[in-house]
């Protein structure tokens, strides 16, 4: 059995997660060089944790041949479109969601 076959679930455990579903978070505004999976357009935007996907090897390290350890917790975060784009043409109920790693998120009190 290879590793793909043994992978039963979409999600992995992430017992050490900092945020819970429903928590308000803000994406860090920082522009480090290198391979980053956090789109520029979402940096600085505030959203809500939609689900916890699990803990995965850090893609920012994997991209350069490192092992990606320690694992990083990955969340799906939901943002209102009118907050993401000042001139968004659609209604207030439209939303956009994406995956953000924990080290890119700050808590919103």
């Amino acid at each position, binding site marked *: 059995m290879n590793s793909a076959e043994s992978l039963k679930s*979409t999600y992995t455990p992430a017992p050490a997660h900092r945020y819970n579903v429903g928590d308000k978070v803000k994406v860090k505004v920082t522009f480090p060089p290198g391979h980053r999976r956090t789109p520029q357009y979402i940096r600085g935007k505030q959203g809500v944790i939609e689900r916890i996907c699990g803990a995965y090897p850090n893609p920012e390290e994997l991209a350069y041949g490192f092992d990606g350890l320690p694992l990083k917790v990955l969340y799906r975060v939901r943002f209102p*479109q009118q907050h993401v784009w000042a001139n968004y043409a659609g209604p207030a109920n439209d*939303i*956009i*969601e994406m*995956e*953000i790693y924990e080290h890119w998120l700050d808590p919103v009190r």
Partner: protein
Amino acid sequence: MSNPHHDYYARSHHDHEHGHDHAHDHDDHKHPNPANEHDNGPPGEYEIMSRAMQELLEAKGIIKAEQITKRMEQFDEEFPYRGAQVVARAWVDPAFKQRLLTDGRAACAEMGTMLEAERLIAVENTPDVHNMIVCTLCSCYPRGLLGMPPTWYKSRNYRSRVVFEPRAVLREFGTVLPENVTVRVHDSNADMRYLVVPMRPARTEGWSEERLVGLISRDMLVGVTVPKAPE
């Protein structure tokens, strides 16, 4: 020079000498087979690297050319139809649909569809919410369920516009949604892959899974169109 691949390079080099300057879309050159449909110019850098890697792996006995061919057949002939089968099952079996929405990978495995490395999140269209999928950073796509992504999915146009004007893009696909329906865009930007579960159309009561599959197209499972009720 018994290796047939050498002919491939020779031919490509020949084209190059005649000034055939073709702009390559690297996204279209992931197939490692020399007989690719874009074989009308010199091979791109990634194509050459891919070929060289395959030759090395073959020379070391790690893979066989037949295995590559088999994989390409799966991508062309098997994988593109799996998504529709999963959705048809969800339409006829509410308990399965719930499990699919809870854990896409586990639900697919349950019906014998073994995804390789894909972590699948299925998102359901309802009368109040319409889902659509994009990958703004590259072209992440649930290949194990839908096969290779279409060219438009990989285009800069689609990737840049869906996130800020999804309704305009939907209209171009002929999908017009009232404002009270929430458009929920998913940027497939990291480790998860996404499948839209469209609403089952009216006038399909009592239809078998096999018959329902015929109503489902790839575009619906990316969320740019919706299935229509049969006449």
